[in-house]
């Protein structure tokens, strides 16, 4: 999901919130029937007249079709598709392109991270997240792992990754999670 999608979500929600608040106040005042001009029976005559015009079917049908297409585009933009294509490396120019499969490189970094004591498994990929190109490594760690040691190992792997890709615009995200099953200790009470 892109930042644009979230921005659209927020803007439309904000707009609908204002409409609901304003509409709610008007409805409440109308229900009390004591404050001009919100008194008396509801008069939808002007709207009814508009629906009789010759342009009405085109206007309402066209608007409906546009809304439908926008809604489908908006709905599909919520699908989690964060992967990116090959990464351009230094040296890319008019003479040719130098590309690397970011996911494969990140996966190799994950294999290196797996060598850090306390890390049970790891996998890596490159994705777009919150406007950044992120090399993401997910690692499962032992419950008694040395966190500082793992962070230090992640630093080294990160520097290797930077060294290999030679790109300064990539950022790193090593997401640790405790392994579901703890195989490391037995306790005697």
């Amino acid at each position, binding site marked *: 999901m892109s930042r644009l999608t979230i921005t659209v979500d927020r803007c439309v929600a904000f707009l609908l919130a204002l409409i609901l608040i304003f509409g709610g106040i008007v409805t409440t005042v109308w229900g009390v029937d004591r404050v001009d001009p919100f008194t008396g029976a509801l008069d*939808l005559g002007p709207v009814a007249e508009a629906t009789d015009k010759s342009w009405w079917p085109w206007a309402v049908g066209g608007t409906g079709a546009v809304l439908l297409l926008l809604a489908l585009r908006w709905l599909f933009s919520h699908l989690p598709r964060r992967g990116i294509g090959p990464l351009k490396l230094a040296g890319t120019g008019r003479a040719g392109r130098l590309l690397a499969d970011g996911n494969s490189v990140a996966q190799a970094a994950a294999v290196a991270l797996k060598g850090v004591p306390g890390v049970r498994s790891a996998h890596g990929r490159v994705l777009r997240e919150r406007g950044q190109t992120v090399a993401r490594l997910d690692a499962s760690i032992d419950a008694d792992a040395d966190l500082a040691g793992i962070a230090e190992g992640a630093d080294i792997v990160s520097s290797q990754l930077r060294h290999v890709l030679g790109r300064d615009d990539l*950022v790193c995200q090593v997401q640790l999670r405790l392994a579901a099953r703890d195989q490391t200790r037995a306790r005697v009470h």
Partner: protein
Amino acid sequence: MSAPAPEQPAGSGVPVVPSSGPPVRWPDQQAPVMPQAKTPIGAGRITVVGIALAALTGALGVIGVHDGLASGGIIDGRSWIDSGIDTFDGLKPSWWAVPVGVAMVLAGLWLLTVAVLRRPRTAVALTSRTGVFLRPADVRKLAARAADDVDGVTSAQVSSSRRAAKVTVVVTGDDGRIGQDVQDAVAERLAALQSPPRLTVKTRTGVAP
């Protein structure tokens, strides 16, 4: 890429993996790392609201297309908008409009907060030169385990917010020191966090469930 090769400085925490190929010069510990990514965040309520609003927009689109076709005589049936106008036209003010209006205002205020609130963080950062993160639930597990390992503690539970953690331990007997011991153990375990939570320890004498 592989784990750092023998040229790597000693004591880096990364094991040495024998390499069959030519020696590779890996960056040392002070080599520049990739910058830290933004802290991971969850989808949040705004995503659910966004999907619902998109579906609502789609429903409005269906109504528009239907009414365009029905009003143009392309399909049989009456325009839904005309039916709606007939239902509400001439409606007189009544008591039910007050609770409906109040409900609309409340729904609007809720939607307003959802629209402007930040999405929830799903991770806390460890101290590192690059971005290393732990899930809050895992931080609680680590704290509970550290407390559980203190002599005299039979069970431990941890609840936490973004900045504070409350450790509740059941102990076999409180000698007045055990609370401090638990606090020290948990603080040491969470010392690697970039912003360790403020700790509160509560002891209770009893038998673990």
